[in-house]
């Protein structure tokens, strides 16, 4: 028996029919064609399927699609603003923080959830926050550097914006 679900994905209203047994991951990938979230383990142990649900980082394999009714979902497809990459995406490219790339969407979504809350997160905090995301290619070194770099970039932008704001105020 399919359930009608009205939700918001990457700021767009979305209506869909989901079977109660279907995970959010399955519906994102198979029904909505949003294949950026990946299935690595399907039991909450690798983070490849990460999305942000009402501001919180979750494994979309551990959420039923029917649960997201009335909620806000952000997937990797919603991280860039149009053609402008998010600082995390830019830093992942600059720092060579991906090899095969399968875990990359999950890492970027997870890191976004961190930096949205704590742009000043240090290495220890980044490593702790990302421990639910497995990467088998990079050894994490360049990923951690990319996230730290993106945090610095975001802090810079924020302070530039606020400085400009003050200047305009004069």
């Amino acid at each position, binding site marked *: 028996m399919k359930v009608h679900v009205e939700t918001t994905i990457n700021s767009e209203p979305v209506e869909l029919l989901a079977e109660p047994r279907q995970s959010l991951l399955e519906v994102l990938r198979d029904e909505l064609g949003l294949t950026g979230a990946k299935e690595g383990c399907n*039991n909450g142990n690798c*983070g490849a399927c990460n999305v942000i649900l009402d501001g919180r980082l979750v494994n979309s394999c*551990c959420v*039923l699609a029917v649960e997201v009714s009335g909620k806000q979902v952000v997937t990797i497809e919603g991280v860039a603003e149009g053609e402008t990459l998010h600082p995390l995406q830019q830093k992942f490219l600059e720092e060579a923080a991906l090899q095969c790339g399968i875990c990359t969407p999950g890492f970027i979504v*997870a890191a976004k959830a961190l930096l949205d809350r704590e742009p000043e997160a240090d290495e220890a905090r980044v490593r702790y926050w990302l*421990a*639910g995301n497995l990467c088998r290619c990079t050894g994490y070194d360049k990923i951690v550097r990319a996230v730290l770099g993106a945090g610095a970039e975001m802090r810079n932008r924020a302070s530039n914006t606020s400085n400009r704001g003050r200047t305009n105020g004069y």
Partner: protein
Amino acid sequence: MRAVTYLAPRSIEEAVSVLAEHGTMASVLAGGTDVIIQAREGRKLVDVFVDVKNIAETRALAWEEGGLLIGAAVPCAEIYEDSEIASRYPALIDSAALIGGIQIQSRASLGGNLCNASPAGDSIPTLIVLGAIAVIAGASGRRELPVEDFCVAPGRNALQPGEMLVALRLPAPRTNSGAAFERFIPRNEMDIAVCNCAASVVLSADGQRFESGRLAVGAVAPTPLLVADASAALEGQSVSDQTTKAAADRVAAAARPITDMRGSIAQRKHLAAVLATRVINKAVERARGRRA
């Protein structure tokens, strides 16, 4: 194909009535980080998911008479982000902040962790030593049960068919008290505990003597254990390595673990003593920090 139904009741009464209607094929869905996976992997047959997250009472964090009422579906992240909880129940934060990764903590609740009744559940020893009470609702009304009596076997809890956990009630922390939780895992995150342990202590006003204590240990028996004689070994004794060792030895003696891919019998008994020592020391430190 087998049909699966999803229900999202708005009140405890409604939830209890659908649970009663569907019997053992219904399962409460809170954070879902265990039950969704168990259902997917065929470890649990679920025909009806009863999502209790739309019920205000299961999502509440409320202070009452200095104690804390934690809705059964409140996710770990909401608990450890609450600075008042962090200052009054640091042991609870020890647990909530290491259940799974961030992604799990966004969803997983202490209530769910308790209901899952894993011998290794990382919040259960803490809830036990903090003296938490499980608030249970059923068709015939409410009842309360100490958390140490809640788990009855691996994966089995004391809920009767048609009952659900509504909340956990934590008594107010006493003056000169402190508590702590630690687990041992081979990695630094994302593992099931090989052994875990929690202690709470109440010290004398000068901080030199144990007035009372509680010790609980997990992953070493079919259910997390409240080790009464270890608690007794603290009572009235001076705070010393010797006292701590005596209690820790009793924790290890109470352990009756198995050998599996996560650890061996000897390893788990050994770790029970190591972790007991560590959490007693940490609880003492916290108690002294909190001296009136």
